[in-house]
Structures are given as C-alpha cells and as structure tokens.
C-alpha cells in the first residue's frame, strides 16, 4: 500500500506533523500534494489508495482523484491535504464518504464555509472543507479521522487542454511542491487511467514523461486509452500525456449544453488547419531568460535552458536572434541581432548553459532592452522564459511597458513548470498580441519549442470578430477574441437563448487581407452531452473578472459576482469553497442549496453515458482481436515475419481501428489562404484564364459556325 509521509512543518507553530520514513521501503519519491495531520493534535496519516481517472473528451479533461487516508494512530486527527492543480483547472466537486455514504460538497462563500467548518470541528463531527489558497494550490481539510480509521475523499477538476499544433497536452502534477519547507514523499503504487475521446481522429497518444510506464491501447480511430500503474516508476516529475489529432482544415467546432427551459451554453473552437503550413516568414527574436533565484526551484532553470536551446536550434538561417539573461539586470549575449548560423546557435547554447539562478526578478529592464532590437523591416518577437514570480508592485509598470512597445513587436511568454505566475505571463502576452505557453518539467522540450516556433512564424488571423446572426447569443467569453495562431486554437464560451440555426459570420484579417467566412451552426433545443462546458464558461468568466480587477481598481468590485458564479456553478474559487457536511439535514440547517449535488448527478450521468460509449468501443475493438482464419492463397499482413514456428494462421493481428464515432458536436471548415503544399485546396480558375477560356468558347462558336447545309442534308 502506498504511504505518504511528511517532515515536520516549520511554518505552523503548534502543529505537529508527521515525519516518518518507512524503513526498507522499496521506493519513495516526491509526489503531488502534501498530507499532514493538522489542527494542533499531531498524528500520523498515510494514504492507502491514490488513483486518478481522467476522461478527455474533445479537449476537455475531467480528472477524478480518489484517495483514502488512514490514521495510523490511536487518536483523532485532522487531515490537511494540500495539492496543486494544473493551470486553468477548475475544481468542480469534492466528496467525502461519511458513514459509508458519499456526501458531495456544496460551494459557499469562503469565509462562511470556514465558519461552518470550524463550528463542526469544535463539536468533533464530520466536516470537510476544500479551499483555493492561491492561483495554483488547493487545500482540503478533513475532520475528524478517527483512531485507526480510514477516510475516503474524491476531488474532481475540469480543465481545457492546451493544444499546440494539433497536439493536446495533459499534465498530472506530481513534481510541484505546495509548501517548500515540507518534503512529502510517496511510496508504493500510483494508478492513473486516461480515456481520450476525440471527434477528430487521434493520430498518436504518448507520454513524454513516462514513456515506459504507460500502457496505451488504441481502441478506435477516435478513442484511445492509457494507463499507468507503478510501484517503482519515477514519480518525481509530472505525468505528461500528449495526443495528436489531425485537424487538416481551418474551421470551427461547436459543442453545446442546454437544459430544457433554460438558456443554453456553447463552446466554440476556432482552429487553424494544415493548409496554412506554408505561410511563414523570417523573423527576429530576442530571447529573454529569467535567471533569478526562484528559477532554481523545481528544475525550472534547467528546463528553460533546454527549451530555449531547442528553440534556438530550430531557427532558420534567415532568422536573426539575440539572447538576454536577466535577474536584477539584463545581460545581452551578442548586443546585436545575429543571423541564426550554426556558430551563433552554439554560442547561444553555451551562454544559456553557463547561467546560474540567483538574485531577484526584475523584468521591466529586460523587456526594455529587448525592445531596442526592433527593426521596422521585420517583426520582432520577444520571447520571455520566466516563472513570472516577480514583485507584485512591478505589474503596473509592466502593463505600461507592454502598452508602449514598438508597433512591430509582440511579446511571447513561456512559463516552465507548475509553479509559475500564469496570470502575469498571460497578461503580458495577451496585451501585446502574443501568446503564452506553459511547459511542464516532464515535457518534450524539442517538440514544444518547435510547436511554439510555428505559432510565432505563422500569425493566422487577427482582429477576429464573430457574429451569430439572428441567434441570441450573450455573455461571450472572452469579450474580445484573441488572435488565432497556427497551432493555438481560439476557444469561445457563451450563452444562447432559444434554439435554431445561426448564420454565423467570422471576420478578421489574414496576412493583411480581409477574411470573411460564413456558415451555419445549429444550436439545439436540448443537449445533455456536454454539461462540463457550463462550468467552464463560469470559470472563464471568473478568471476574466479577476484579471481585469488585478489590472485596475482591485477586486472589491468583482467579489460579489465571483461568489455568485462560484456558488451557482459549484466551482471553487479564491472566494468560494467546497464544504462537505454530514447529511442533507445539516445542509438544510445552514440553508445551503444542494446545487452541486444536482449538478454532480447530471455530470455523472453524462460521464456514465460517455463511459458506456467507450466500453462499447472497447468491446467492439476486442471482438476483432484473435486468431485469423487461414487463407492459403492470400497474403495476410502481419507484424511478425511468418516462419515454420509461427504459422500465419494462428498469428494474431492487430485489428485496424474503425471509426465508430458518434458526433456530439458540429464542425465547420473554412477556406483560408494557403500555399499549394498546404492541406486545403481548390481547383481555382483565375479571372484571366477564365476570360480567355470563355473568349475561346465564344470565338469557336462564331468562327467555326455549324455547317447548317450539312445539317439540312
């Protein structure tokens, strides 16, 4: 059985934590989250079971983490489990098993939730509390865990996966420490199962971080499964799974959710297709590497160095670049833009690897220095690799600096690891027309660097605006559509009234030319296939409100709306928490509506339908596995060369996956400009040729007149 232990915490006076090590343990390593006995009573807790089941459906991942805590002492303790969540994740459910029955939590305003929790704690009854501590950390408190008793909890969180050039990446955080002073360790088994379902055919599924630990099964062209169960595997780094889908055409995908009698929700994804692959041009780059002391943590500097080296290695000879390392002050390498020759690349790589992390993070001078390389003839891309853990007071100055950037420049930010200030890095990138990327420690740096570079080289569509025609669409998130980059889909969430067909119109600019695309999209009367997008819509709204507040007058004006959204859509935020009470009566006593219980029931029904569909797909695929009948005169394709010992008649062959997908959404492909080597093409008659051809047709009729005499004969 896996056991998680922690060293005594130094930060919480009066708290006694566990610091036990299992003598002779076969393997142990750092792992996600931290389990301690809190509340001033001490105690030793272990985790008996830790499993995670992930369902990825069209790029939205639902992660269900189930854990069983065990109190190994003869006294009551309070468990405090603090865990990181991936970027952009929204905690959507927290359940505890009380007296053998699952009690789902409800979301209430944070302070009230804490008061309720404490009131139960004083009476030594069963409450559970899940709070968001900061942008990346959640804490779960469970009390009491009786002597020698077990406590089962389940946390569910939703997240949109990042897509990079048709590669979607899922990260299960294991490497991130939530509190630096405590060294948490995991021992024994860890199980992770991932079902990947996609309307777009899946080309490949792999784990860059745990290649050898994962078993991957391709059941159909649109459904694959990966599972990891290890006692000896390396859990000191994040589990990263990446899958490649082939979306050859630029276009949009729409999924909806609507309960009868209520306004609906939609998620619309705009994706640049392969036909734009030929559109690229030489660029100027200034790479800005953060070498401040915080980059020492979690191997961030090393990861940044590798990632940046991979990026520089992949530059074309036509590109020019400079590298600036910064902590308290910037230090440029070349002091000019250098052509990306092999020699320059080597110098840059040597420069990067020689850097050591120390000092503070002062970003503004580095960005100012980078702007000085602006050349009106070429677009300047400033690529910042940093954790963004800069001074809070520097934010306003950075915002102004971004606003005052040279007109021909964009700023791209790359955060490495889970311990990054995502909000700041995204703000910097979004405000400058660039984009932000986040790379996990276990990721494939070369692939990520190449994917990011492709996005920089091929700006696809700018100034985008979406019009839904007569369909009543409202509360669209984000308020302004971001630029569409190659390999970086744009997702839009919103609400709609009624139902019907929308004659939509997408307008924008591509390579300076006007782009207008029109089409039809059906918004259904009822749709129970994608309830998760309701929470995702609310989460995006909360996220935007917080970012806007941080950049303006503070959060006081938006707190009420965030609490309303959190409670209404059952999502934990910095202002709302999950509270689990003993029974329904207790919820009534506190006048807490069981909104989440209803929502969770609906979500689980939908997930069950998905699970049933996936099970059928697995069964169907399994039917085709087995011995193949002998066909004496027909060659059978085999992976193994037949020989006397391996007669072909008994050699199992892998069945070819069949596409048995059931569309749950709509897709619409666009025609965008692209080179002939791209993937979208049309037999195009240009006007000159057309006029010439038509002219020839007319002349042929006039000049070569029918010989009517012969016709009359």
């Amino acid at each position, binding site marked *: 059985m896996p056991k998680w232990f922690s060293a005594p915490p130094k930060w919480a006076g009066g708290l006694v934590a566990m610091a036990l090590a299992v003598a002779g343990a076969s393997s142990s390593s750092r792992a996600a989250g931290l389990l301690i006995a809190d509340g001033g009573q001490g105690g030793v807790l272990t985790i008996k079971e830790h499993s995670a089941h992930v369902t990825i459906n069209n790029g939205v991942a639902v992660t269900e983490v189930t854990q069983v805590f065990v109190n190994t002492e003869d006294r009551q303790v309070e468990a405090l489990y603090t865990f990181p969540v991936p970027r952009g994740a929204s905690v959507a459910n927290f359940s505890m098993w009380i007296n053998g029955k699952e009690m789902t939590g409800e979301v209430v305003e944070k302070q009230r939730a804490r008061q309720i929790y404490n009131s139960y704690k004083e009476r030594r009854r069963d409450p559970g509390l899940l709070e968001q501590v900061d942008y990346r950390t959640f804490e779960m408190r469970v009390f009491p865990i009786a002597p020698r008793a077990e406590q089962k909890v389940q946390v569910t969180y939703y997240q949109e996966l990042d897509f990079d050039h048709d590669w979607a990446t899922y990260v299960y955080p294991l490497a991130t420490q939530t509190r630096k002073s405590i060294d948490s360790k995991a021992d024994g088994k860890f199980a992770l199962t991932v079902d990947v379902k996609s309307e777009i055919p899946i080309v490949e599924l792999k784990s860059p971080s745990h290649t050898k630990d994962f078993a991957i099964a391709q059941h159909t062209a649109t459904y694959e499964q990966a599972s990891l169960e290890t006692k000896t595997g390396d859990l000191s780094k994040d589990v990263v799974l990446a899958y490649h889908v082939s979306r050859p055409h630029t276009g949009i995908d729409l999924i909806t959710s609507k309960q009868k009698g209520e306004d609906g929700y939609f998620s619309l994804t705009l994706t640049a297709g392969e036909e734009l692959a030929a559109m690229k041009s030489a660029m100027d780059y200034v790479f800005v590497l953060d070498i401040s002391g915080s980059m020492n943590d979690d191997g961030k500097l090393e990861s940044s160095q590798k990632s940046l080296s991979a990026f520089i290695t992949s530059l074309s000879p036509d590109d020019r670049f400079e590298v600036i390392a910064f902590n308290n002050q910037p230090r440029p390498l070349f002091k000019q833009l250098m052509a990306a020759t092999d020699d320059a690349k080597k110098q840059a790589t040597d420069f990067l690897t020689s850097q050591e992390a120390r000092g503070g993070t002062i970003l503004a001078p580095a960005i100012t220095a980078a702007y000085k390389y602006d050349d009106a003839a070429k677009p300047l891309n400033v690529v910042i690799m940093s954790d963004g853990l800069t001074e809070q007071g520097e934010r306003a100055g950075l915002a102004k600096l971004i606003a005052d950037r040279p007109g021909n420049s964009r700023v791209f930010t790359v955060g490495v690891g889970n311990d990054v200030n995502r909000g700041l890095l995204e703000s910097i990138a979004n405000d400058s027309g660039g984009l932000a990327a986040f790379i996990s420690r276990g990721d494939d740096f070369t692939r990520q660097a190449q994917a990011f570079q492709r996005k920089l080289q091929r700006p696809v569509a700018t100034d985008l605006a979406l019009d839904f025609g007569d369909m009543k669409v409202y509360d669209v998130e984000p308020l302004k559509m971001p630029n569409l980059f190659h390999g970086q889909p744009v997702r839009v969430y919103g609400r709609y009234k009624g139902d019907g067909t929308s004659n939509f119109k997408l307008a924008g600019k591509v390579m300076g030319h006007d782009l207008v695309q029109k089409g039809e999209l059906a918004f259904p009367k009822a749709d129970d296939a994608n309830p998760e997008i309701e929470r995702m819509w609310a989460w995006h709204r909360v996220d935007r409100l917080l970012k806007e507040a941080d950049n303006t007058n503070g959060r006081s004006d938006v707190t009420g709306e965030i609490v309303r959204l959190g409670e209404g859509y059952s999502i934990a935020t910095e202002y709302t928490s999950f509270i689990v009470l003993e029974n329904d009566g207790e919820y009534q006593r506190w006048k807490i509506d069981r909104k989440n219980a209803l929502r969770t029931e609906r979500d689980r029904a939908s997930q069950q339908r998905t699970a049933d569909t996936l099970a059928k797909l697995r069964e169907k695929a399994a039917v085709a596995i087995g011995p193949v009948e002998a066909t004496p005169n027909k060659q059978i394709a085999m992976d193994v060369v037949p020989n006397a010992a391996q007669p072909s008649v008994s050699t199992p062959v892998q069945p070819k996956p069949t596409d048995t997908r059931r569309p749950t959404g709509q897709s619409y492909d666009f025609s965008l400009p692209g080179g002939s080597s791209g*993937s979208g093409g*049309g037999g195009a008659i240009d006007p000159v040729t057309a006029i010439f051809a038509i002219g020839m047709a*007319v002349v042929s009729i006039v000049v070569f007149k029918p010989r009517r005499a012969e016709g009359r004969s």
Partner: protein
Amino acid sequence: MRPHAPMFTTSTARRFIGALPSLLLAAMALVIARWPAMEQSWQFDRTRILAGQWYRLLLCHVTHFGVSHLVWDVAVLLGLGSAASLVDGKKTWVAILLSMAAIPILILVGQPSLQTYRGLSGIDCALFALLAMLLLDQSLRDGRRMAARIVGLGLIGFIAKTGYEFLTGHTLFVDQSAGAFVPVPLAHAVGAVCGVIASRLPHGSGISLNSNGTATSCVFSG
C-alpha cells in the same frame, strides 16, 4: 482542304445531350452553394475518403470555397462545355467523366499533403484542352491557318501556364496569398491531360452527328 463531315450537330436535342453534363454540374454547383454544410460533406476530404466516404471523389467537383471561386468555375464550365458539346458532344462527355474520376484519384495518390479539394476547374481545364485540340484539328483540316495559329497559341499558353503552376506551385495571374484562390496545379494538369486524351479518341467515338442522327464516323478523317 474541305471538311469531310459536319463539324456541328444541328439537332437541338443532341446539342442539349452533349451539353448536359456541363449543365448538370453547373446547376449542382450553384444549388449546393446555398448549403455550406452540404458542401462540407461533399468536398474532397482525404481523411474521410480513406475512412470510406468514397462518394466525395465524384461530388467534390461541385463544391466551392466561395462566390468568386464558384462564379469563375461555373462560367468557364458553361462556356467551354457548351462550345465543346457543339463540336463533339460524346467527347465532351468522355472528357468530363474521365477528368471527374481521374482528378480526385490522382490528388489522393499524388498529393498526400492536400487534405481538402473543391472546384470544377480541373474539369474546366479538361474542356479547354479538348476544345482547343478539336478546334486545332479542324482548323488544320479546313486550311484555316490563322485560326490554327490562334488556337495553337492559346493551347501553348494554357499548357505553359499549367506547367508553370505545376512546377512552381504558384499562380500566374493572381495573388494566392490574397485568399481568393488556392490553386491545385495537379488538378489542372490532370484535367488537361484528360481533355487531350478525349480529343484523341478514335474516330467514331464522338457523337458528332448529322441531322438524321447517324454517327459520322469519319468526322475528322482526312
């Protein structure tokens, strides 16, 4: 030199039959343009064709990427289709059917990076090549040297343009980055070859008819 046989049919019905494939294709293209979702489900889509939607190989021709694309393709199809059907309706049928089949198949096999394809221009090219070859033949037989030169120049220009596009991957007369046209030179080249093949069919395979409906097997002989 005098012609040995009638160059054009005089039967309206037979002219109509000769022009029928062009008219049908043009009508389908114009009608389906009103339903973008239908166009999407008919277009050449490599992934879906390989998944079993083979009907896209034939239907892709009547789908278009936009009004400009549609208008020029259909205008040329109607012009060349009508003219070619007046010259030789049967060979017009052959050129259209042959190019309809050959273009998507060769794109599927020969241009694996191309995921989607729409348009009638490959068929237009087949008709252009067919008509040009027929007119060139007839001009030479009629002794109309000037006409033969003009047609020959037009044919050479067309071959040169198609060859340039095929070899360079770029359009000659339009800015492909403007988004109006995304050319597939392979389709044009294949279409042109189909037109030439149709024009070279043995005598008698054409439907150049006289007024009493008898096939004139010696239309181009001599």
